[in-house]
């Protein structure tokens, strides 16, 4: 311990011996750390905002469908709805998973909407409002006109469609839909609210009460197209997905194939690919940081060994073991890493706080004014610090080993 402290003292003094060089390398490492930390904080915030917009405004964290539904989701296939006994099995499984905050049963359908002068097509969600608002907590916030009660007989219309058909809250419209047997049915609705669009699939669909959807499709008991889940924590997605797969994976249909399919938001939204690209960019930025650390430390340490050859010869001659000489130089590399990390994290923290105070806004799809809220994540600080420090040590191994292997006689002869 005492030796380690002395080793650190000697290493620190050797670094301070070449102040300008040490400052330059520490700054270089610090700039790398700042770049990574700020980039990660900004992209993480951007990702989180968009993902929460997608999941909390409409999609949910996980969805369960009848097997084969997802590939046909654009056609809104009524013949691939979940039957009541299937729904019961799913609900029984959901109730055993404590990480699930809420779930909503949805009946999706396609139909025609008419304001008695114009007609156009529309896709609808039949929902139980109370459950749906728990599962998609940002949905009520999307209602830019009217109320979120969504009582039977009311419809929430997407703003683009309402604008195109000159509809406003309180207007009367007719929805015409074909059920899975081919018979057509129509029902009058009162416009209860106008919805702002949400990013992602289904973000421009309307909402009606599930009992109205069942009546429109002439179902005695409402079938369910999908069950959307909202979890207590976004981080629980993999664990809940695994539990659901285990609990429902054994349920087979008449053909002996799995009866249900379970998908996380990543399978349901194209933004997942953008998120993956952002993650990939983060990896590249980290690789850049590692490269900066390796090159700068390797370079400066090689120079240091070259300049201090005679000194190394002296300490070797008086009996310092090669392993201790190795450790002395590695300690210098370690201190380079630590100084760069401390400086880099400190400046990153200040930059992130400045960015928070600037309330930087951006838009995504139809959503505008989303505020970027970068956070200085303690785990990423620890990880990046650890990576930089480990790389600093690794980068100093080669010059340190060169120092340890120096022939004392040759080293003492150098001027």
């Amino acid at each position, binding site marked *: 311990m*005492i*030796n380690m402290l*002395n*080793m650190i003292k*000697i290493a620190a*003094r*050797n670094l*301070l*011996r070449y102040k300008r060089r040490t400052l330059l390398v520490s700054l270089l490492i610090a700039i790398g750390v700042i770049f990574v930390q700020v980039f990660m904080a900004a992209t993480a915030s951007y990702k989180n905002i968009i993902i929460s917009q997608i999941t909390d405004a409409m999609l949910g964290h996980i969805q369960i469908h009848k097997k084969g539904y997802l590939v046909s989701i654009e056609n809104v296939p009524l013949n691939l709805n979940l039957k009541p006994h299937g729904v019961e099995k799913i609900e029984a499984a959901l109730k055993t998973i404590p990480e699930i905050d809420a779930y909503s049963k949805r009946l999706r359908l396609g139909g025609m909407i008419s304001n008695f002068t114009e007609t156009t097509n529309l896709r609808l969600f039949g929902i139980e409002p109370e459950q749906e608002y728990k599962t998609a907590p940002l949905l009520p916030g999307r209602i830019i006109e009217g109320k979120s009660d969504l009582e039977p007989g009311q419809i929430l219309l997407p703003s683009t469609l309402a604008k195109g058909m000159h509809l406003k809250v309180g207007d009367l419209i007719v929805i015409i839909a074909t059920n899975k047997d081919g018979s057509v049915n129509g029902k009058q609705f009162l416009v209860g609210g106008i919805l702002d669009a949400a990013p992602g699939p289904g973000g421009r669909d309307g909402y009606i009460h599930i009992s109205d959807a069942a009546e429109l499709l002439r179902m005695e008991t409402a079938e369910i197209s999908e069950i959307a889940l909202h979890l207590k924590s976004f981080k629980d997605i993999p664990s809940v997905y695994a539990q659901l797969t285990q609990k429902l994976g054994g349920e087979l249909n008449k053909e002996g194939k799995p009866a249900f399919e379970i998908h996380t938001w990543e399978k349901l939204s194209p933004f997942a690919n953008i998120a993956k690209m952002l993650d990939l960019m983060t990896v590249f930025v980290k690789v850049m940081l590692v490269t900066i650390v390796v090159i700068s430390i390797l370079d400066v340490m090689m120079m240091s060994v070259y300049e201090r050859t*005679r*000194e190394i*010869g*002296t*300490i*070797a*001659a*008086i*009996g*310092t*073991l*090669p*392993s*201790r000489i190795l450790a002395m130089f590695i300690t210098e590399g370690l201190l380079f890493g630590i100084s760069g990390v401390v400086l880099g994290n400190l400046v990153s923290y200040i930059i992130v706080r400045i960015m928070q105070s600037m309330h930087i806004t951006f838009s995504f799809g139809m959503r505008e004014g989303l505020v970027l809220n970068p956070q200085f994540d303690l785990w990423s600080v620890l990880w990046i610090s650890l990576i930089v420090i480990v790389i600093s040590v690794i980068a100093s191994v080669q010059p340190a080993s060169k120092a340890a292997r120096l022939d*004392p*006689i040759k080293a*003492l002869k150098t001027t």
Partner: protein
Amino acid sequence: MESVTASGLYKDYQMGKLTVNALKNLSFSIGSGAFVSFVGPSGSGKTTLLNLIGCLDKPTQGKLNVAGVDVTGLNRKQSALFRGENLGFIFQDFNLIPVLTVFENVEYPLLMVRKTPAGDRKKRVLQLLEEVGMMDQKDKFPDQLSGGQKQRVAVARSLITHPKIVLADEPTANLDHKTAYLIINLLKRMRDEMNTTFIFSTHDPKIVGEVETLYTLEDGELNNGQERGDKHA
């Protein structure tokens, strides 16, 4: 007891295709507490011999016993351990560690080589600094010292581990006449107090005049040691 015994010692260097016989069939014996010097012109093999005794190099042939140990078979790590345990070094250019103070330079072998406990370390360093007259400079760094002061610190560093043998390669070459004598007297006093064997390699007539045994090397060959009388005070 003998400090160093050499028998049929050879050292050859390969310079390209040419083999240089740096030392040829050297046999000698240096007793414990001796104050001896190897003299000879440049290239005569003085430093090569000192390097062999200092376990910094290995003979091509022959036997070399230092402080009771056959050092010809030691590997790199064993050599380093042996040097730390038994030998002290004084260099022509002082070779102090520039980032350490006078106190820390002297303390270094105890701390990084011997792992001596802190209390004992401090006591020994202060005692030795007092002996070499550097106590009042103990917090200074090497670049704040004169040549003579630096060499006194180097002497203290070489003796801090109570080595059996101190090897000094041209220790007074970079010192003025007066300072050189001060250093030589200091070394003799240290020898008298600690019974340490001092082996010099030098051209300096000041040292030559003070040593008890003088070995002359010429073209790698050793003339018989010339006894200069017992100057042991």
